[in-house]
């Protein structure tokens, strides 16, 4: 009887969820997205805790000539490379670099994109908006890889410069998205209400518009981490990214390229690591898109 009463009570007053709770509730229902999250969190934990069970000098970069080109075995899961280094351990260490750089790129492009995009969107039609958007057009007309290559060749390739170069080359896209997002909100009644109360423009943008425009921005940020990981790998692949002997997936593939014909197994594992990470982020991004905006899902 008590159970019955409880069920009635619950039915009468549906469980109240906070906004984040509601988003999580919808996200959880999407099995693919959940799988993506589990894969990404696992990879992230493995990467974060790598120094606990791997020694950078001994396991990752030390060369043992007697062990070179050993195919996959129980001792070396993915075999060893041309310097006798264990590929599995290098991939784990490489995850640290790839994820850190991928997130760094997004941090840069999001900061710039949010500032420029929200200004352009809030003051749309103004001189500022026109200047910013024409600048975006110009940067978007230059192929992204090329812009990053040019910027890196100017500033020299260390990790902060790489993050900055790749972040700047993805910034215009983010700015466009933020602008569109802000534009769709700025004429809503509650913004007008805030304005009629005499709230300053800065405050309206920061505490009224951005929190409501953040949905698509978060989705884009998640997908951008994925693209960032691919672009840092591409940069390393053509020799302008992370430098050897540091393990990074693209750099490993670049070294494997020379040995590709005789030792094809060298190519497989680092690529699968990239695919797995990028795929998990894509699934999370798609899941977030549906969870943040249930109306958009058909």
């Amino acid at each position, binding site marked *: 009887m008590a159970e019955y009463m409880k069920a009635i009570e619950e039915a009468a007053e549906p469980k109240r969820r906070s906004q984040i709770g509601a988003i999580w509730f919808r996200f959880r229902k999407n099995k693919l997205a959940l799988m993506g999250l589990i894969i990404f969190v696992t990879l992230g934990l493995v990467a974060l805790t790598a120094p606990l069970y791997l020694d950078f000098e001994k396991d990752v970069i030390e060369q043992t000539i007697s062990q070179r080109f050993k195919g996959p075995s129980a001792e070396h899961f993915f075999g060893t490379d041309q310097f006798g280094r264990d590929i599995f351990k290098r991939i784990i260490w490489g995850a640290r670099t790839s994820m850190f750089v991928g997130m760094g790129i997004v941090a840069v492009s999001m900061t710039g994109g949010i500032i420029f995009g929200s200004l352009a969107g809030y003051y749309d039609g103004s001189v500022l908006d026109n200047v910013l958007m024409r600048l975006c057009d110009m940067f978007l007309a230059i*192929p*992204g890889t090329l812009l990053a290559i040019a910027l890196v060749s*100017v500033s020299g390739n260390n990790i902060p410069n790489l993050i900055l170069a790749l972040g700047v080359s993805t910034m215009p896209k983010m700015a466009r998205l933020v602008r569109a997002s802000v534009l769709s909100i700025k004429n809503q009644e509650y913004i007008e209400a805030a304005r009629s109360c005499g709230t300053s423009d800065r405050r309206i943008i920061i505490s009224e518009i951005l929190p409501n425009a953040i949905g698509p921005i978060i989705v884009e940020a998640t997908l951008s981490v*994925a693209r960032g990981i691919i672009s840092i790998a591409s940069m390393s*692949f053509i020799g302008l990214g992370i430098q050897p002997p540091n393990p990074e997936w693209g750099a490993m593939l670049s070294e494997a*390229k020379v040995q590709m014909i005789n030792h*094809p197994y060298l*190519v497989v594992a680092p690529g699968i690591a990239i695919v797995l990470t*990028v*795929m998990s982020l894509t699934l999370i991004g798609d899941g977030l898109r549906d969870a943040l905006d249930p109306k958009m899902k058909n």
Partner: protein
Amino acid sequence: MYKFIIKRLLMLIPVLLGISFILYSIMSLTPGDAATLMLGDSANEQAILKLREELGLNGGFFENYIRYIGNIILHGDFGISYRTRNPVFTEVLTRFHYTLRLAFTAILISTVFGVLFGIIAAVKQYSFTDNFITAVTLALTSMPDFWLGMMLIIIFAVTLKLLPISGATSWRHFILPGLTASANYMAYTIRQTRSSMLETIRMDYVRTARAKGVPEGKIVFGHTLKNALMPIVTLVGVNMGWQLGGTIIIEQIFGIPGLGSLLIMSIRLKDTPVIIASVMFVATLSSLINLGTDILYAFIDPRIKSLYQTKKKAVKTSG
């Protein structure tokens, strides 16, 4: 319509000027001097000064830039390559046809197979085939293109020995690079085709066609695909622009001497005129293609065409 086309063409001018300025500033910040690079470290100072003057690099930054742009606008002269000393324009044109061939192969593959698999996925929605196609799509978008290229080389060139590993001398050389370059856009095309097919397949006119007994094949290709074509056309346009500028790394892997290879080499050797000219070339082409896509809309979709017609004409056609 003409007004729209002219406006779009005029808007291209500031964008191109901006691109040239951005690239010129970036390249002038790179360490190293073009004249010294060309003559080598041991060259005497006078020869370097003389060459610098010939290249138009003897003034300040703005002076050099304005002279450079002035030559382009007034004489159509893009300067000479610091590396080969040939006119930049011939340098770009001799490389461009490789990139164009690669781009066409990639677009052909991605559009044909993308639309085909998209239709299959939409017609058999939620079936095993549909889920399989979706999974492949996800995998294709998650792959870095250079890795896919290497895997294709290992499978088809090294193991099966069906296709050449690298080079650009016959059409067979373009199959693997074309596949590699098409992968990403094939995935987008599949998704786009699937969703816009699904959207139109639920329309009333499709139901009417079914009700009056039109054969299923004619419904899919005649009634649905025809109306679902719009977003697919946009995608082909965008794809074209991307392929022209985005195959830099793929050209490297397959040893295709196209624009991408030229660009990477030029950046390494600080060959500024070649870099700027090739990027402007690609940017102009992709803007023109985008414009072409927009115009093409009008032909595919009569609703949009009517927007561009003057009121008088619109009345005439409707009446």
